[in-house]
């Protein structure tokens, strides 16, 4: 990757992600108030002591937004990375092995996908102990079925290329084929999918939080904050819009960077996505 040739859009995206990351890391230093302390009236307007106003319990919105970056960024990112690791490993293995391995993995995947994601998550999370690790694993496992689908499709496309055949004829092992021949040539579509999946993860996390199975109060997360304050919209209180805007900001920034990565990896002629 040549950082010098990075276009302005990607620079903006990268700056945005770094801003959110800094907020997450240094939250206790930056935030004016504590994450869970009730410091004012319910739904105080913007300005004065509270730059963004207060939430439905009278907590400072800006402080919660800064603390919320921690849970949101960490859980969504970890879940997406994990789901890609699982999904891509399994799908590439299926493609390279073919035959019965492919059939078994693909049909099991179909089986999992046929259960609505939210219901599956609810059942599993209701049974298992509630902590962040379990939450991440469950989110990743559900998401990985989608990654598997797309991973298998793009890998199948590449696996019939002459250079993969040439590698087999050379006597290369499966690991070489997966990591040296197929993976570099499927990066572009998979990176695009990563940007989208990351956005979905944030939204899925907020849905789970809304239902009380995601991040547990009083820990702040952006999705949960939208939920907490959504009643305010009816009364003209804009408190729900701030975390909503934060989610949109992060998702757009991630996708700006991903777009650049796709272009940078697809610039070689003959690669996928370059036709």
């Amino acid at each position: 990757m040549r950082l010098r040739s990075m276009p302005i859009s990607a620079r903006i995206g990268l700056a945005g992600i770094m801003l959110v990351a800094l907020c997450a890391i240094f939250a206790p230093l930056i935030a004016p108030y504590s994450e869970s302390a009730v410091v004012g009236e319910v739904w105080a307007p913007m300005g004065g002591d509270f730059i963004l106003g207060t939430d439905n319990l009278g907590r400072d919105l800006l402080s919660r937004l800064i603390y919320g970056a921690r849970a949101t960024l960490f859980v969504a990112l970890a879940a997406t990375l994990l789901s890609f690791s699982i999904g891509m490993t399994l799908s590439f293995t299926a493609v390279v092995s073919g035959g019965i391995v492919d059939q078994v993995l693909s049909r099991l995947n179909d089986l999992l996908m046929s259960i609505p994601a939210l219901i599956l998550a609810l059942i599993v999370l209701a049974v298992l102990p509630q902590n962040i690790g379990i939450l991440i694993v469950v989110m990743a496992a559900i998401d990985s079925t989608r990654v598997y689908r797309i991973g298998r499709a793009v890998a199948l496309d590449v696996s019939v290329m002459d250079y993969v055949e040439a590698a087999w004829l050379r006597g290369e092992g499966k690991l070489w084929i997966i990591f040296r021949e197929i993976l570099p040539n499927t990066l572009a579509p998979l990176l695009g999918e990563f940007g989208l999946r990351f956005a979905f993860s944030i939204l899925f996390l907020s849905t789970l939080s809304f239902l009380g199975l995601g991040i547990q109060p009083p820990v702040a997360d952006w999705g949960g904050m939208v939920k907490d304050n959504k009643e305010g919209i009816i009364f003209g209180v804009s408190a729900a819009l701030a975390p909503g805007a934060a989610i949109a900001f992060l998702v757009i920034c991630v996708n700006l960077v991903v777009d650049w990565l796709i272009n940078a990896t697809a610039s070689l002629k003959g690669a996928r996505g370059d036709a």
Partner: protein
Amino acid sequence: MPEMLSVRNLRVEVTAHQPDGSSSRLVLVDDVSFDVSKGKVLGLIGESGAGKSTIGLTALAYGRGGVCMTGGQVLLDGEDISKLDTRGIRSVRGARVAYVAQSAAAAFNPAHKLGRQVIEAAFRHGIMTREEARKRAVYLFGVLGLPDPENFGERYPHQVSGGQLQRAMTAMALCANPELIVFDEPTTALDVTTQIEVLAAIKHAIAETNTAALYITHDLAVVAQISDDIMVLRHGKMVEYGPTRQIIEAPREEYTRALVSIRQTSREAARPDGDVLLNIEGLTAGYSDVDVLQDISLSLPKGQTFAVVGESGSGKSTLARVITGLLPPRTGTIAFNGTPLPPARKDRSREQLRRIQMIYQMADTAMNPRQKIRDIIGRPLTLYFGTRGQAKTGRVKELLEQIEMGPQFLDRYPAELSGGQKQRVAIARALAAKPELILCDEPTSALDPLVAEGILKLLLRLQEETAVSYLFITHDIAIVRAIADRVAVMHRGRVVRQGAKTAVLSPPFDDYTDLLLRSVPEMEIGWLERVLEGRRGNQRQSAAPIEMERS
């Protein structure tokens, strides 16, 4: 005679956008002028990138993405069509100027019947009523020698052969009775035996309808049969322009001479046979329940070049897949150096795999676009011989020297090489394994003639240096003449003839080899008529002529 199409000082440019955001202008065609009159054919010839198609498309006032005419005039019957507005251009295209594309299979809509597509232009432009257009289409189907002209239009594109589809496309171009037709490599994708029929049909139809035509091709022997004048192009500039007879028989320019003499390379008779390297016996193989190869037996002596020649669909590439173990045969054995090879790739040892290497037709897809040349050539060294670090770099440099490329290519990606260079790298990759046999699957058919010749010479030189054997798959008899020691002719999954080159390529022939040999265009005016004459005579003699294969 009035000129139907006059092109004056044509200049065409394209805007190239660099990855860093800057853009530059490239000149595709520079200062090209020619005339075509009614009933005459002008052949445009040159390598890929010479600007042939670009010139052809300007006759329709069309430029592919980003291409625009920046100078000169394109006069159609005295009127400059490059100055017309969109509406004016639309009244010209399809009605007054028609276009025949290289791949008819891609140019027809598979969802509609042929007849409907053939008459569409004539009908849409209001030149004829639907019924008149249909009648004309039937007439043209007849002129072009298509079977059952009355009902041919009722078929869908997939129901007819490649050669028939190409002729249907010519009918489509002729249907609106245009003043000019642009043929863009109409026979390049066809087999030689099919090409001859399409050529004859096109020639007949042009004479019959008295249309002016531009005929674009890279094959001088083909254009010699059909055109009255020839223009040789290179890098967008005119090299030579004159009557066909003068170009073929007395070319003035060095480059034209090279093009004319290209098919005349040939090699001495077969060298004495050594030990048998590869022996195939009673091989039958296929996909699902179709046998693509039937009862193939071959034996390849050490250090020789064994050419397998045949048309598309004859099973020659499948033979390579069976030898490499990608497609295990149903019956039959493959012995290498006297020991039988396991039928499936998975059961072969790395050492067995090393001894047989492969060179593909499309070097583009045969190399991982994300690996540098150093890794592409170096990988077999590490895999088979455990060479690493300095030693590996040194050996890769040596190999680059052998294929006449320098160390400056080490850190390039395949996309940064030309087609010929890519094929050379593919050869180096095969050589790196120190193989005893290299399977070459049409390694030169995607390359321009002069580049292809360079590759063939390289292969021959490497054979002398390393005593490697080649199994060379090709559809081109000229290549067989140039490099083979032994030849097998394949037709519909069977070997119809094999032996030493001189024996196979001299009479008496079997029917198929005869047809194949006589279908190869020769650089000689009047060859087409002579062959067709001979073929008609033959058909009268033999009750069962060989029918054309679907391509």
